């Protein structure tokens, strides 16, 4: 296990179930590929000061079936550009989950997370013990462990470095 525990603030809690992430940048911006531009338009409909409030290491929290719809990649390209390191949700829509995990972007299923944290709480993701710890409140929850291969993808930093490693050592 080479993953370093994540520690940061809850940058936003998406309370809407079945949240369609394309709304983060708006469908009109969904064909933009420039991360700088995407970072500027991200979350404008939710918090117009979102970008300036972000700190590297912050995390996002989502409700059940996060990523529902037909998700595209630009919203989370924007979020990674802003320093977001992971998304923790009650549960995920599979297409979204697959697509972002392939980027090496941790998508952590943690039932109860929306009750555990509030926006700006300081939290930690403990990979070894499968815990999300709310450092601000002194509470914690167990998250659903990743499969061995999913962990290897995260450790490698995404699908491409993972495949390279695997092809070298089949």
């Amino acid at each position, binding site marked *: 296990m080479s993953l370093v525990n994540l520690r940061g603030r809850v940058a936003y809690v998406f309370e809407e*179930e*079945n949240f*369609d992430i*394309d*709304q983060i940048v*708006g*469908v*009109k911006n969904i*064909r933009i*590929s420039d991360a700088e531009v995407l970072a500027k338009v991200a979350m404008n409909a939710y918090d117009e000061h979102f970008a300036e409030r972000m700190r590297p290491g912050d995390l996002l929290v989502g409700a*059940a*079936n996060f990523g*529902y*719809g*037909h998700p595209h*990649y630009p919203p989370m390209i924007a979020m990674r550009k802003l320093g977001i390191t992971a998304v923790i949700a009650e*549960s995920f*829509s*599979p*297409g979204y989950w*697959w*697509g972002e995990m*392939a*980027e090496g972007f941790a998508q952590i299923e943690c039932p109860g997370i929306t009750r555990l944290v509030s926006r700006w709480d300081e939290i930690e993701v403990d990979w070894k013990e499968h815990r999300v710890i709310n450092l601000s409140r002194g509470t914690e929850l167990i998250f659903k462990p990743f*499969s*061995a*291969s999913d962990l290897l993808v995260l450790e490698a930093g995404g*699908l*491409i470095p993972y*495949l*390279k490693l695997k*092809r070298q050592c089949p």
Partner: protein
Amino acid sequence: MGYTMTEKILARTAGLATVNAGDEVQVKPDFVLAYDFPGYTDRYFKEMESEFQVIQVKEPARFGVFIDHMIPAITPDEEQFHKETRDWATRNGVEVFERRGIGHQVAAEVGYAVPGALAVHFDPHISQLGTFGTLALGIHRNMLEAYVQDTVSLRVPESVRIDFNGQLQAGVMARDVLNYLVKTLGPSACQFCVMELAGSGLASLSVEGLQTITGLAMFTGAISAIVAPDAVRLDYARSRSRKVLEPVYSDADARYRAVHTIDLGTIEPLIVIPPSSAGTRDLTDYLGLEVHVGYLGSCASGRLEDLRIAAQILKGRTLAPGFSLYVVPTSQQIMAAAAKEGLLTTLVEAGAFISSPSCDYCYGRIGTMNAGQRAVSTGTLNVRGRMGSSDSEIYLCSAAAVAAAAIEGKVADPRHYL
């Protein structure tokens, strides 16, 4: 203990005697399909060379590329993009299907819907090949794995079985069935599972209707959908199959995460309100809502039974003043058949705008809506801005409901016109 169709297909493609839900396996897809789109195919083609030094795919007959988005091109850059796709396919010996129609439909027409086969694509709507007993998965970024090596890694999914019985009322379509599944079982009912359709009620659903339901399975959280092939679907598939495989069937004692029974006769017309595919409501609660645009097409509709019912409803009638109705047959084959039946004439005489097949109406690249406009649509999605301005709205429903709304300029009950 028995196995599901999905487990059997994945066992064969993993080269194993059996696999069980939850197993992590390396499987060799029978077919690797994609449509060309910026950020997807161009990225795979570039990365397979730059990151993995793979200049050509192995076994090019396993691969297929569809050009169905940005058709027709409206900028030189778009045409250049298609040219680069064609060039890549030529270099790799991979077949390209251009302007034949929407790829997920064309894939069935040209023989990728092989019962018992495994197909992968980046787009989850490929699940509609499940109509023919093909396990077709939208694997997103993991497509790169399929371009650079024989196998892709996969966790064997559980299945959720839906047993249909009874038959649909007149004016209720397969789209209503899918919306009913989302409404009653929930938008995450099949999360990370394959939705397996079964039961005596299947006999009353057409092949085209099953393509609609399986193609939209992702809105139940499913990663795909599959149906055991019957004689009709086997005949369709085998008459054009690119590969000969023994069809597979789930064992009677196969294990499912859940089994649900649905009486098709109880389903009423439904409408999906914006901004989410989860917003399923009774259509009758929205009767009279003013609408300005109708779209009948996409990989989820635009097939002959959709065009037939729309023509039946619109025959001898005209569109409401100011209403724009876009009718986009799903493939050239379907368009030609509709022309021979006189369906296109009926629709044109009613005032419809008929387009050759293209994916572009579904995402607002053509027939773009302005702020304040509201559409009834058989497209796949209704997220804000999907068909134009972020201040326009999309209500998803069946082809019959789109045709009825086109007459009134309001959400209308199609059963009144049949």
